[in-house]
């Protein structure tokens, strides 16, 4: 913490880590694979970009082990845009995270979209000055990630599908569990913590405030302005769009439309207007057609 006597500046505190996510609220974070896409995203009004070599739809199509992106590619995107740049590390791969911190990315996504490096432990994110965002499918998972130092949560959905049903399931689950927790008496919170497999102090904090202590975005399957607005009406603080933009017919127009839909999520007239003339949406895969081993949301524990 800051020393009031000397007013010496302090970096890497939970407040500045969580604070950046607060500034991104109400915005759209877009996956980009090159400088051209990054510029399209910035021009469209993205609040941040996620630099990665393949969007989830391609990772899914091409298979194989998926890893952190090439530092050259990440550097080129950091130089190309003025908005924050995020990049992904594999679950548990703390050396990829060290490299990303050395590249001075603004946020690290410890992501199930890449192949996990550790099937037991996630990264100890308190060891880093750069903030982390982590995926979650339920409240217990979100609280475990926060305990490990995550400064932002994104509900996972099912990346690379263009099918919003899993994103819906996860945000409904997380917000439903928060409401259930808030309704419990103080006596019941000890068992609630046991059932959620999360620390009691954090469980008590969520029960008292009725919300997560960090910002929560939604990810995984958002492909249209209506999808983005749906997630916002469900209580998301903002939206990640991965394959949905650059796998569609007219990425620049769709990117702008998704940004506007995220701001005016409660105004059907605006949503109708921005949904017009966008060309083809990404083709998409129904999550129910995906065999269980190919579901990315099951990665992470």
């Amino acid at each position, binding site marked *: 913490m800051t020393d009031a006597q000397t*007013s010496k500046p302090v970096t890497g505190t939970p407040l500045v880590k969580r604070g950046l996510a607060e500034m991104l*609220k109400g915005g759209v974070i877009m996956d980009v694979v090159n400088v051209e896409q990054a510029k399209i995203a910035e021009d469209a009004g993205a*609040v941040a970009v996620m630099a990665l070599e393949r969007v989830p739809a391609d990772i899914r199509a091409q298979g194989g082990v998926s890893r952190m992106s090439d530092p050259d590619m990440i550097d080129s995107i950091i130089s190309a845009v003025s908005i924050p740049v995020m990049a992904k590390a594999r679950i548990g791969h703390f050396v990829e995270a060290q490299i990303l911190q050395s590249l*001075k*990315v603004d946020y690290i996504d410890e992501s199930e979209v890449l192949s996990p490096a550790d099937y037991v432990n996630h990264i100890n994110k308190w060891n880093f000055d*750069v903030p982390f965002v982590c995926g979650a499918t339920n409240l217990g998972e979100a609280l475990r990630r926060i305990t490990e130092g995550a400064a932002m949560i994104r509900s996972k959905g099912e990346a690379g599908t263009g099918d919003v049903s899993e994103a819906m399931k996860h945000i409904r689950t997380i917000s439903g569990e928060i409401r259930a927790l808030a309704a419990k008496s103080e006596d019941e919170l000890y068992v609630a913590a046991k059932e959620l497999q999360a620390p009691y102090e954090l469980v008590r904090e969520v029960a008292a405030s009725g919300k997560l202590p960090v910002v929560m975005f939604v990810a995984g399957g958002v492909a249209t302005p209506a999808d983005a607005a749906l997630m916002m009406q469900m209580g998301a603080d903002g939206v990640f769009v991965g394959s949905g933009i650059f796998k569609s017919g007219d990425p620049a127009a769709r990117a702008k439309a998704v940004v506007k839909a995220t701001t005016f999520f409660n105004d059907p007239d605006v949503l109708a207007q921005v949904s017009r003339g966008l060309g083809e949406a990404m083709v998409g895969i129904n999550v129910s057609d995906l065999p269980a081993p190919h579901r990315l949301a099951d990665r992470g524990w």
Partner: protein
Amino acid sequence: MSLTVGVLALQGDFREHAATLHAIGVESIEVRRISELEKVSGLIIPGGESTVMQKLAVAYDLFEPIKNKIHNGFPVFGTCAGLIMLAEEILDGIPGQAGFGGLDVSVRRNAFGHQLDSFEADLEFAGVDGLVHAAFIRAPIVDRVGAGVEVLSKLDDGRIVGVRQNNALGISFHPEVAGETRIHELFVRQIKNA
């Protein structure tokens, strides 16, 4: 006198500003439309991404009305991205970036570098007793101040992080995420005296 402060709610941490106003007993509404802008006695422009706020303000026909109001003496308070939006000149912006104006200053975006360089510090602030606890998050700084601009706060190294000119108050940092209410109180007094 009952007083309602607007918080520009296109993007960013507008809820934290509303909560800070609530904490000091001041009513607020979120402003996304001209009809909402007409109801308020002053406007807070929150932290967020200045490039995004500009685009959304233009897209929703708020840009010119806010600009006109500010130039006609409407009380306005910008934090971080909000300071950028009030600067007459923006340095290190994207092509075509412009704000509402109101402060005859040059403001440099992301002046401290990457998120890794974001920090907390305690500062003196003119009109506030004691130190202000401030969170600087990918923060801008004021590089140049014009005549008639009052400097309210500086870092130890002399860089300017708080300014006021007539009706416009702008700061580089975020009192609203740090549990600091006194600068909002200052702005509310400014509205009452307007």
